[in-house]
């Protein structure tokens, strides 16, 4: 601290760079290697044990031989995602989920032993030995020939002449910056949340969305909020919350034709009206899956709470899985910026639309999209031949990345995280929304953005990571608040008290966010293709089966005027 910390820059040249080693990055790297490219995967943590992937244990597969009908799946997801589903990407899930699942099965990542018996077994290393999907993922990558670089946090993408030419990051353990010169880059850095203890996602901070936004990519889906469950004692501790999730195999699930209405925000209306629930709170819209479904083994997928109650609102600021992220410019995971691709939770593939329809779409979506993105990136890399970025650019990025370490005085990154929690966490900001409250939060965030973020101090490399995470979290907070203000209606997991009903005329549209030429945040609507809008002649109340508070009264008054 205080000194001028010039980290030496190590330069690596690769064909395809994959940022993030969760399920999406795994398949992106595997596919790009298969296509004959030299692939490096970089992760700020450890491949297989970081991000969301270690926690998920369901994978939805479309299986025609088991009677699945594409038509039913599409109708189901459209209704639950309230007609904001991107059917190009949803069709990709229908086509590719079974082949990806079969690959995982082959590698032993989905293990086929009988269900773990929770009465007689204690989750333990012994039980996991040899079958642990988290340890198998990097093994398979290594065998395939993917170079993994771990504990390196990527902070910026390298750009020249409108193209992305790799990325740069710092090592967590060494005084070293790494510049990855790549012909094609795939962002698989996952989603994020505001470091609230309810969900095990403190390492996920929307870094991919933030880096892509800074090089001019479009971002979408920031207007829909997740509302997952957790426990009130040691929320999502491996043992207290969901031991089965952690030690068990991955279950195939049946897609959006089963389950209730998905993970909607409905329970919050009940809490608002009746006060916080005390015991055995079971949200109505988390109905267990069809008990005779062969793909859920007759097992309830609801978490069991051996020593606590289920509570809602686990992941403050997380969007709907697969709906927030980098906006795809085509059907092949391309960001619109030459050389840059994205997949998984970092891609706004909109396979879930406005609300998470069923379990399994998170993991399966990441697998399917990762594979396609890896393929597209490999094809691009095979044709590309741009000059690498200049030494001066590398020096500038290195200098900016290290700035928090080199300052004498400054703001504590943990304090910035506290500010973000206090501003974004209350249920009346991002869950029950209203114009003035959103504006008041936005004023706070703008101040933090302008006055605090440029002066964050890091006393060591751990805090340097916290500093960059805080910066990305603040940028995302601004996107979320602006997108929520912009969408003047209610739909899925977006409820505006001041506009408590769907408005099909104005809002069968996605909200796209860009940085304009002055560096300001710009929002626009992108209309949903007519053929994806569902049956508009259907009466409102059957088209939309979930009721928002004051919705029908609002519509009646509007019709009366």
């Amino acid at each position, binding site marked *: 601290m205080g000194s001028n910390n010039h980290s030496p820059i190590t330069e690596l040249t690769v064909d395809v760079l994959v940022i993030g080693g969760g399920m999406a990055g795994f398949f992106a790297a595997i596919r790009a290697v298969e296509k004959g490219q030299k692939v490096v995967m970089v992760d700020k943590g450890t491949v297989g044990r970081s991000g969301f992937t270690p926690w998920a244990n369901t994978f939805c597969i479309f299986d025609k031989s088991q009677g699945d009908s594409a038509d039913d799946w599409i109708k189901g997801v459209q209704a639950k995602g309230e007609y904001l589903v991107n059917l190009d990407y949803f069709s990709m899930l229908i086509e590719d989920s079974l082949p990806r699942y079969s690959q995982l099965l082959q590698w032993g990542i989905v293990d086929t032993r009988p269900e773990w018996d929770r009465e007689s077994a204690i989750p333990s290393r012994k039980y996991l030995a040899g079958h642990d999907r988290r340890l198998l993922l990097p093994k398979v990558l290594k065998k395939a020939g993917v170079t993994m670089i771990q504990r390196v946090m990527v902070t910026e993408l390298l750009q020249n002449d409108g193209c992305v030419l790799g990325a740069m990051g710092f090592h967590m353990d060494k005084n070293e910056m790494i510049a990855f010169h790549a012909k094609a880059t795939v962002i698989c850095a996952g989603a994020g949340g505001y470091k609230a203890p309810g969900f095990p996602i403190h390492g996920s901070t929307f870094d991919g969305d933030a880096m892509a936004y800074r090089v001019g990519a479009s971002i979408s889906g920031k207007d829909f909020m997740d509302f997952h469950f957790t426990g009130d004692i040691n929320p999502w501790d491996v043992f*207290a919350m969901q031991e089965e999730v952690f030690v068990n195999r991955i279950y195939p699930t049946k897609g959006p034709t089963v389950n209730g209405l998905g993970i909607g925000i409905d329970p919050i209306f009940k809490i608002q009206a009746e006060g916080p629930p005390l015991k055995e709170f079971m949200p109505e819209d988390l109905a267990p899956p069809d008990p005779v479904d062969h793909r859920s083994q007759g097992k309830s997928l609801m978490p069991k709470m051996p020593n606590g109650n289920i509570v809602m609102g686990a992941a403050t600021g997380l969007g709907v899985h697969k709906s927030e992220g980098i906006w795809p410019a085509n059907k092949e995971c391309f960001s619109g910026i030459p050389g840059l691709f994205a997949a998984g939770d970092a891609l706004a593939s909109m396979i879930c639309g406005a609300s998470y329809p069923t379990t399994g779409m998170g993991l399966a979506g990441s697998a399917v999209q990762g594979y396609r993105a890896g393929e597209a990136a490999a094809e691009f890399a095979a044709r590309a031949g741009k000059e690498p970025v200049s030494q001066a650019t590398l020096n500038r990025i290195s200098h900016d990345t290290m700035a928090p370490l080199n300052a004498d005085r400054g703001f504590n990154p943990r304090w910035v995280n506290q500010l973000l929690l206090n501003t974004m966490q209350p249920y009346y900001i991002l869950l029950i929304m209203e114009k003035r409250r959103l504006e008041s939060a936005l004023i706070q965030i703008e101040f933090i953005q302008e006055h605090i973020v440029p002066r964050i101090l890091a006393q060591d490399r751990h805090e340097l990571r916290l500093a960059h995470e805080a910066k990305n979290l603040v940028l995302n907070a601004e996107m979320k608040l602006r997108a929520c203000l912009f969408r003047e209606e209610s739909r899925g997991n977006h409820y505006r008290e001041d506009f408590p009903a769907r408005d099909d005329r104005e809002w069968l549209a996605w909200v796209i966010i860009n940085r304009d030429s002055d560096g300001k945040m710009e929002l626009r609507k992108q209309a949903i293709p007519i053929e994806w809008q569902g049956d508009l002649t259907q009466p409102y109340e059957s088209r939309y089966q979930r009721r928002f508070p004051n919705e029908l009264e609002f519509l009646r008054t509007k019709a009366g005027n």
Partner: protein
Amino acid sequence: MAVELKQIENCIGCGSCVLTCPCDVFRLDEKAKKTVIAYPEDCQVCSMCTIYCPTGAIFVTHGKITKPITAYM
């Protein structure tokens, strides 16, 4: 509260916890060949470290440590 080294004598300094923790809570003391809980206040109380510790040296208990936070340092 949160992550604790209840049986530090068991720790063999393998570094698995450093790699496992999603919140970068541990550092390895190379000389002593022991792990150090360097940033307990950043622990998310998920227990993943205990699953991948080969010796059972780490324990995670209910609750979270919150050290006083100074805004400006």
